[in-house]
């Protein structure tokens, strides 16, 4: 097993979590009052962990770079949250959710973790409803569900297109309750810049107050990293502008292994890039694929005519359209998992069928849905002799009620009316399955250092299914960490407060200050964004949706060179002791420039195609991903040794005892 011990409990799959909870150590309530926990990041994972740990009695300090915990990027999740409630009676169960998630992740996730996730999923919904999260309901007053990509049941709970927002506000309200009680101290506009290890254990962090610029020391008995994913290494992604890898990367440099960095999800339904000035990409919920049909023209000349504005998509006859997902994957059609849908779009666009100026867009068309819903409305409203136009209008109203906010968002950005002409979409970087390696207890390879939510690598394998990120974040925070951390903290009841005057804190603070000074004093010629954009281009072109050995090798050396150039030539205006967003960005991009290289290295070493990782050398004749279970059914956990290039690979073999490993097929 090497140095990686996953600490998965013995026993049958369905009993592991219960028996584990029964066996681990607890901290008595009086002692909890003497234990401090630091949580970095206040999205669904960090926020829920903070609320529950504080509820249990620990003293919690939370840190977020935003001006409020409520603004963490979990808020932008649209579609929904999965839970194996089987309210629809369509055959759902914990096992089926577990099975779908493992299969959706292309058999690269740890069985026991995923099963636990499925097991607590129902609890999440109960918890959220009790907190006042206003999920969508049916007229009978009960909760409504919808289906999402890659599964055959309806298990997704949602609140219009704002599920993430509602869940995060629920979680934030639970935090607020604890803030009001004095059990959580919330540090907003603070960025964690390093973790402090004392005797090999995580004992605190160094954070910068982004308003005053002050570099602060905070101590605790354990530290949780819940800082989200690293999709912004691509510069353009659907992540928030501030989303960054710094917290995760800094702990990686202090000894926490980084797992599967190359597993990145490219989301198929995003609004295409409009120009050079673009600062970020906007996603539209995958739920649109429930009713929208994806197509490109069948003939190259039609595609060309559309690109040049000579032909309108609405003028193209039905038989001249290629509904390529329905053609290639008849069983799942437009509802194939994200990685499959994204690659299929890229394949068509690379073949010259793209439909916008840059040739990087496909259509998402609701005209069939308008008619289908319209006919339904005609029959329920008992309208006789309805004209085509009338039917369409009725259908538009139904679609508007379901997806109105998304359609409006599209129109605001693109300036085209999606009720009249099909939407244009293209894949964009969205989520990172990789992250800090954690064991069953969500502890990293550093004792006392935990990672939760998108920041860890754990549950989604090589590809995440829709509506599973919210589930995982809340499961980790509400129901896993509060138990598993107790097991570790039980040994700390006699430790007492940890001094921030320890030399380890001093050393860490000195290093951070040194880095800041170096940024300011470099006085180079190029802005931070200049480097970030160049990094993003390398990543997208060579480490993006499809990868090959040559490109990856080039990427590795280009990133390394870019990193050297960055440190020589970056220009960071302003001061350290005050608000300075350029300085913040410089620190983040410096870390992305290191992560990017490890990312490419990981992608190069993984000689197979699985989930979000597609190697051109490894595909079937029809262009489907070709997995290599014999050689790569493991988690690649990288140990930092000084340079990303020198990172040491550790393997955690994945064992599937409860699931038959198959070729993932959605045909």
């Amino acid at each position, binding site marked *: 097993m090497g140095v990686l011990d996953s600490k998965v409990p013995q026993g049958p799959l369905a009993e592991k979590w219960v028996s584990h909870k029964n066996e681990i150590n607890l901290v008595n309530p009086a002692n909890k009052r003497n234990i401090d926990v630091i949580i970095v990041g206040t999205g669904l994972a960090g926020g829920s962990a903070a609320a529950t740990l504080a509820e249990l009695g620990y003293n919690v300090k939370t840190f977020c770079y*935003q001006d409020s915990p409520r603004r963490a*990027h979990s808020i*932008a999740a649209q579609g929904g949250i999965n839970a194996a409630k089987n309210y629809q009676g369509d055959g759902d169960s914990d096992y089926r959710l577990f099975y779908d998630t493992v299969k959706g992740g292309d058999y690269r996730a740890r069985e026991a973790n995923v099963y636990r996730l499925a097991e607590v999923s129902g609890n999440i919904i109960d918890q*959220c409803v009790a907190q006042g999260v*206003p999920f*969508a309901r049916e007229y009978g007053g009960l*909760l409504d569900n919808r289906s999402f990509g890659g599964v055959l049941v309806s298990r997704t709970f949602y609140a219009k297109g704002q599920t993430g927002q509602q869940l995060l506000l629920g979680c934030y309200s639970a935090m607020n309750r604890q803030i009001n009680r004095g059990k959580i101290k919330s540090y907003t506009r603070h960025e964690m810049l390093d973790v402090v290890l004392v005797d090999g254990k995580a004992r605190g962090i160094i954070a910068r107050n982004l308003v005053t610029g002050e570099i602060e020391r905070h101590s605790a008995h354990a530290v949780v990293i819940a800082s989200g994913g690293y999709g912004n290494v691509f510069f353009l992604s659907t992540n928030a502008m501030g989303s960054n890898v710094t917290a995760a990367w800094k702990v990686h440099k202090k000894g926490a292994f980084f797992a599967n960095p190359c597993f990145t999800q490219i989301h198929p339904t995003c609004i295409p890039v409009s120009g050079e000035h673009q600062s970020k990409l906007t996603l539209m919920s995958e739920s649109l694929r429930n009713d929208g049909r994806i197509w490109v023209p069948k003939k190259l000349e039609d595609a060309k005519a559309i690109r040049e504005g000579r032909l309108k998509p609405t003028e193209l006859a039905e038989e001249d359209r290629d509904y390529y997902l329905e053609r290639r994957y008849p069983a799942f059609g437009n509802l194939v998992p994200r990685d499959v849908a994204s690659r299929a779009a890229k394949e068509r666009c690379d073949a010259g069928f793209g439909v916008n100026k840059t040739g990087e867009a496909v259509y998402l068309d609701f005209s069939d849905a308008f008619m289908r819903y319209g006919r339904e409305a005609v029959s329920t409203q008992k309208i006789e002799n309805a004209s085509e136009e009338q039917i369409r209008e009725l259908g538009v109203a139904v679609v508007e009620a379901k997806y109105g906010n998304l359609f409006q968002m599209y129109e605001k950005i693109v*300036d085209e009316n999606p009720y009249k002409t099909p939407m244009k979409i293209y894949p964009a970087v969205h989520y990172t399955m990789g992250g800090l390696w954690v064991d069953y207890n969500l502890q990293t390879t550093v004792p006392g250092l935990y990672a939760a939510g998108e920041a860890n690598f754990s549950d989604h394998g090589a590809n995440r299914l829709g509506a599973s990120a919210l589930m995982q974040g809340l499961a980790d925070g509400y129901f896993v960490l509060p138990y598993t951390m107790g097991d570790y903290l039980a040994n700390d009841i006699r430790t007492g407060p940890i001094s921030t005057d320890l030399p380890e804190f001093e050393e860490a603070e000195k290093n951070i200050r040194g880095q800041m000074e170096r940024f300011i004093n470099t006085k180079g010629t190029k*802005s931070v964004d200049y480097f970030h954009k160049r990094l993003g281009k390398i990543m997208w072109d060579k480490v993006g949706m499809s990868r090959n050995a040559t490109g990856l090798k080039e990427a590795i050396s280009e990133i390394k060179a870019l990193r050297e150039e960055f440190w020589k030539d970056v220009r960071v205006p302003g001061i350290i002791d005050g608000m300075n967003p350029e300085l913040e960005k410089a620190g983040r991009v410096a870390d992305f420039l290191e992560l990017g290289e490890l990312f490419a290295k990981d992608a190069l070493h993984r000689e197979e195609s699985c989930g979000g990782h597609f190697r051109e050398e490894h595909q079937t004749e029809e262009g489907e991903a070709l997995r290599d279970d014999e050689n790569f059914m493991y988690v690649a956990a990288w140990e930092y040794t000084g340079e990303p290039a020198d990172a040491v690979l550790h393997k955690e073999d994945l064992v599937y005892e409860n699931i038959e490993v198959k070729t993932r097929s959605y045909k």
Partner: protein
Amino acid sequence: MNLTLKIWRQKDAASKGGIQTYQLGGVEPDMSFLEMLDVLNQELIDKGEEPVVFDHDCREGICGTCSLQINGEPHGPDRGITTCQLHMRMFKDGDTITIEPFRAKAFPVIKDLVVDRSSFERIQQAGGYISVNTSGNTQDANSIPIPKDKADAAFYAATCIGCGACVAACKNASAMLFTSAKVSQMALLPQGEVEADRRVLAMVEQMDKEGFGNCTNTGACEIECPKGISLENIARMNREYLRASVK
């Protein structure tokens, strides 16, 4: 497009600020407003000047971080959107655009266009929650049926993103729309009804402490709210508070 930008610059909370004028060329209609500011900042950095600091994060209109009073209106001239969703096609070549921070005693300026909205946090901390523990051992989610119209109304109140445009637009810098949205969400749901009285009293008390103005029902907040939060929520809070305070 070529634009004249009049932007509020202020070194820090303690310093006095003022309007500075910048000329900016090469603006495209497809750019978002914040991307236009990115271009300006890039030019400033290249010239060795300090870029304009403004709050922003998700850039898709949901996190509520971005603010800005643009030509006298929060989030600019378009409706139902945040500044990050405002596109330059709303402006014409040669326009002059005035960009200021949101102004209120309870929103002190931190730097340039960035304001401190922690007063909103404290209002929520005062009672904007339902006091259930997070054990997950609550009753089954479907054991409390909630009429769809109530659930929907609670949802619409809950879509508030806490950006502060309501305060910025209000001639009295009142935070009634924000506070009432939170109060309404909980008051409309059976789960939240139990402690509705305590909640509304505590939240209004905190709102007053923060130094927000009083509501005079001008309705500006509702018009400028990027999420279209309805004045009905304010009436509901008035009702809830009246009921709670006569008890």
